[in-house]
């Protein structure tokens, strides 16, 4: 008779421990805070779902969420087509390939807070290169510390500068995997450049673009460091994105309960949108 034992479970244990300490336990702490009120000294009072209700009904949260969606939508609308366009115009072989790739990768290698600081100085109206040029050479009234529109233009530009490369590199990887034979076949079919893009290049890039959009969505939806260093959420609250607002509530006001509830809602939205997007994009591949 075959003996059965449960020793195989030990092989799963390391991963279980890793996931537990990495994700589950910190998250349960947040869950713990989100349903209680605390006044320090480890004194806790049961709150139930009160904080969740408060956050979901709060105008401040709605405003921050709206700004967050606008920011993410804007950078996706700009970065994805721009990234594809740059990838399409990059050489596929020869001397310039590594040069282009390194140039593209450079912005992504800079630490996020440095990017924020760089753009802050760059955009200062009187001493920054960009700010000075716009104000004193072109005569455009540009001051991101005073004008919400200028602040938005600056954080969007900064993100495009920092992260379009990711889309470029992923799209480029998809493009170089297309054998010359398909381009030849398309030419012989009489396909225009647009048809080649629409029916050969785009379908071949679909998988990498799904990943690119997913990564850009998650990163931009959770963005904190760069806009915090650049505008600090201002002027006023005009660039206070969700994460910035969250930190204000948690560390500025020390409202740990509402902050924890907001974290969980924030997390649920990110997860839901990512899951929806990924499921919709890959549902054709299953059959």
């Amino acid at each position: 008779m075959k003996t059965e034992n449960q020793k195989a479970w030990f092989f799963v244990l390391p991963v279980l421990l890793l996931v537990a300490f990495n994700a589950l336990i910190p998250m349960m702490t947040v869950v713990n805070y989100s349903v209680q009120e605390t006044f320090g000294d480890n004194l806790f009072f049961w709150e139930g779902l009160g904080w969740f209700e408060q956050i979901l009904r709060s105008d401040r949260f709605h405003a921050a969420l709206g700004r967050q969606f606008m920011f993410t939508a804007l950078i996706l609308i700009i970065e994805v087509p721009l990234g594809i366009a740059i990838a399409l115009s990059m050489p596929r072989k020869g001397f310039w390939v590594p040069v282009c790739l390194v140039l593209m990768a450079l912005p992504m290698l800079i630490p996020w807070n440095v990017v924020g600081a760089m753009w802050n100085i760059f955009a200062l109206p009187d001493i920054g290169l960009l700010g000075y040029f716009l104000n004193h050479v072109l005569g455009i009234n540009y001051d991101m510390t005073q004008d919400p529109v200028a602040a938005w233009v600056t954080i969007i530009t900064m993100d495009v500068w920092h992260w379009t490369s990711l889309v470029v590199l992923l799209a480029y990887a998809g493009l170089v995997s297309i054998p010359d034979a398909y381009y030849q076949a398309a030419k012989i079919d009489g396909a225009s450049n647009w048809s080649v893009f629409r029916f050969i290049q785009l379908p071949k890039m679909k998988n990498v673009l799904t990943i690119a959009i997913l990564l850009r969505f998650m990163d931009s939806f959770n963005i904190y460091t760069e806009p915090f260093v650049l505008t600090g959420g201002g002027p006023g609250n005009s660039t206070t994105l969700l994460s910035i607002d969250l930190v204000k509530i948690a560390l500025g006001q020390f409202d740990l309960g509402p902050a924890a509830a907001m974290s969980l809602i924030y997390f649920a939205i990110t997860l839901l949108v990512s899951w929806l997007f990924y499921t919709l994009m890959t549902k054709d591949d299953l059959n």
Partner: protein
Amino acid sequence: MALVLKNLTKVVRGVTHIKPTSLTLKKGHFNVLLGETGAGKTSLIKMMAGIDPVADGRLLMEGTDITDLSTQKRRISLVHQFFVNYPHMTVFDNIASPLRVAGMAKSEIEGRVGEAADILKLGPMLHRRPHELSGGQQQRCALARAIAKDSQAVFLDEPLANLDYKLREELREMLPELFAGRGAVVVYATSEPEEALLLGGETALMVDGQVAQFGPTAEIYRAPASLTAAQVFSDPPINHATVQKTGGQFRLGDVKWDAGAKAAGLADGRYTVAIRPNHVLPFATDAARTALVGRVGVTELSGSESSAHFEFGDNGWVSLAHGTHPYRLGEDHTFYMNTDACLYFAADGSRAA
């Protein structure tokens, strides 16, 4: 009405790959480009298709100069040796793609795709993706795309080379009727002499980037213009040796034979004789009477035919005959040559008789 090449030349980084080539490829029959790998068949096709740049010369389609016309505007089809189908599209969409690009009406597309799929027996597979098909089906899909499109020229670049024997036979039989009556110039590249003979039409023998001979296939098989042409258009390789003509006789080592009617007029001197393996037999017949004795090296049996490689003089010779024959390896055997089938070439390689 035809595809005309006028001194078409291809140069890559200063090296001439295709020497000035002039051909008139007509409709209504197969135009075969026959040559070994690297002879320039694919290069020539790529120039005709407009994929590779033309260094010099002109290309005329139905009298119109298309040398500088882009591939997209040429109304051509091309089937490769390797199977090229768009992997993310179904068989239907693959066959329909050139028609869609041309902006054809949906009902007409369905009709044409259906017709092409019927001829190539792809009906049940129209909704599969290429990777779900066998190699033969994939190539049939590529062929269907070529015939569904209303092309002025169809280029088939060794389309059967990557298929197994049975499928190759089957598809090869299909090919002539596939393109009959479609009004397109059909160009077929192959490295197999047998294939050229089966497809008939006209053949251009290609050697080292130029056409050695061009004409009706059977005719240039019977009467090669040069030793090179004879060598390209023979499989197994054509036997050849240096002979001396004195008076009315040729002498090859100890073997002598009468020049016969067609070679009698040649001046005395040295020639190269060439004879196809199927005219060198292991037994005497009424026609094959001139005896050659050689040591048998390798023998091969291919179905109903058997071939023997034997050493004769300074050269290796091949005999090809029906049936099986009792050769003993390493021993001398007497072969009989039909001297009426001998071809004679002058010192410069041109045909003398």
